[in-house]
């Protein structure tokens, strides 16, 4: 299936890309990140994933329709995912 990925803030720097439409063999977010790591290199994965726990690093968010996607969340054809760090302040 084809998934639209968009990168924001420092994740864009880690990927050296604004994002793209990616053809995915797998079905969930974890598999998508694996595919993106193959494409953008290990630095990209290191930025997102905690090596020890295998989960997201603190504050890394992958959103779809404003809602958080966990690593095991199943994806749908044509879905748009935004990779963004969670910040607030004023």
């Amino acid at each position, binding site marked *: 299936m084809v998934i639209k990925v968009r990168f924001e803030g420092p994740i864009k720097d880690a990927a050296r890309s604004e994002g793209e439409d990616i053809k995915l063999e797998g079905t969930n977010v974890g598999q998508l990140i694996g595919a993106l790591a193959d494409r953008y290199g290990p630095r990209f994965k290191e930025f997102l994933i905690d090596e020890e726990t295998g989960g997201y690093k603190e504050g890394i968010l992958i959103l779809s329709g*404003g*809602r958080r996607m966990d690593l095991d969340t199943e994806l749908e054809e044509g879905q748009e995912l935004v990779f963004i*760090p*969670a910040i*607030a302040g004023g």
Partner: protein
Amino acid sequence: MYGYGEILRIDLSSGDISTEPIPSQVIRKYVGGEGINDWLLWQHFTKVDPKIDPKGPDNVLIAGLGPLGGTATGLGSKMKFTFKGPAWNMFGDSVAGGTFGTAMRYAGYDHIVVTGRADKPVYIWIDDDKVEIRDASAHWGKGVKEAVKGIRDELGDTDMSVACIGQAGENLVSYASVTVTEERSAGRTGAGCVFGSKNLKAIAARGSKGISVSDPKGYLEATDEIYHRLKSDPTHWGFRKNGTLGVVGFYDRIGGNAYRNNQFSMVPPEKIKVMLARWFADNMKTHDFACSTGCTMGCCQICEVKGHESPLAERYKGLTGEGPEYFTVATFGMGCDIPDYAAITHFHHACNDYGMDLGEIGGAVPFLMELWERGIIDEEDTKRWCGEPIRFEWGNVEAVEKTIQSVGLQNDRLGEILKDGLVKAAQNIMEEKDVPVQQYVIHGKGGATFHEEIRSFPIWALNFAVASRGCDHLKGLNMMDKGFRKDISKAWFGSEKAGEGYTPDLKGKAAARSENHTTAINITGVCVFRTALNPLNIDLDLMARAYTALTGIELNGEELYLAGERTYNLEKAFNSRLGLRREDDTLCDRWMKEPIKEGPGKGMKAEDWFDDLLDEYYEYHGWDKKTSLQTRKKLEALDMVDVLEVLENEGAATE
């Protein structure tokens, strides 16, 4: 004593100046910064009736910076002004970066306590052991930049740290701010008004003593650990890259922005595009900047308006200095519908120069614009108010310009209407027009703030309703529901529910614990922007380790948290003495009753969960659910029997 300075007391009525050490038992209980500021406030108001007029000479102005502030800890330095707040007539404090707090500490003073009222305009000059009260007549009536330059020229030091008010503070605007060296604003709750009420234009400080360290090796090891942990945190790099402007894009993705007086929570895409951090970086930013001593992040951004970047840039050509924060973009860009960074930056600078709280003015102008849209006010009104038929249409920069000027200078009816804040302004307009307008006032706990969508994020909504200093997002700063931080929720409560978005689950507990945690950070004197937003990265144990190495006083993370909780309870106790109860912890009609119209939180409104979460919030704090008052059991557990006795004598505590 390692890592600590003294208390400097200045009475502006008598001219008396004295110093004293901070009592060691007070350090044990409240650590420093906000904690000892609050203790000094509490002590003052055991001798003075807390129900005094906060604009009168009996109020007290306390400036303080905690022990890790001004050091190389690597987390920045944030000082606090503490006082009875004239903006909303309750506990008041206000925080600022800049270098003033550090200069004060380097001169040997962790806290300055100013009482009384000078009989003519003065400023205070601190140069290590030399402390003087000097004539400020030549600087009175001037904006902050001009006044600071004048004071520096007079004292012959162009780099000196100065905390200074503009015309708004002199004119006793209740939400006047203090601008600190020279573009960091202690904005909220009216510190500038307290300066003005004391005829105090500024405090200038220079210090050469530095801060002594008990265990230099242990201290450097702790700071090295802090630095490496920061580097490993992806959100740190997000903040470092764009500062708070990164929030614009993030909130756009989660429905967290507020548009046109929060009638909407999604900003039209073509407008959000030119308010993104990326637009600012590409078109106006010149370089990054760390606002305070010891900051290794540097989230401030310096900018220049060249004159061609945006539709309004020509008008502000040549403007240079610090760029706006998310606060200002939300206020003018979204709240007033002026999606133009050149204009937003200009208004940011104008508010700092007149010295007024962007939050309160950020509530007032969008409110007037909604009244205009609804036909409640018109050109006849504005002509009567300010001599010109100003049109308060969405996006009209002239209306914003005139409002800021009128509030600062207090030279017309428009300024007078807005002098005591948004809620009072609405009452003034209702009396004049005989039309109900309260339903368009955006406020929490009776005070205004900048707008963001909080109905879909119950922790933030509760923060706005319950904060000890009134409507505020910083007293319990956290990322659990807005950042979907299930990991923080799990670590704090053993459940991920507080980190699940768009639900009320566990959000009352999360709001309460965030207040204690944020206060624990504030009492150390560092910036909350990394520490509170990602508490799993820089945890309280690590901060306590740095503190112990600096001061030689044993402290662990749990004890630091308790000192934060104790401090927050002192603020609560102050408000309880003023008569504030559960019914005062509230949100405006729009947030309570109107459902969100669009975006991920569509349909949510606060009244659906507010009372249940308030119960949960009080319960977690150990306060009485019915009244909100503190209980004997809780205050005894916190070793605050002295506070309990005062409250019980006044019927302001329960069993």
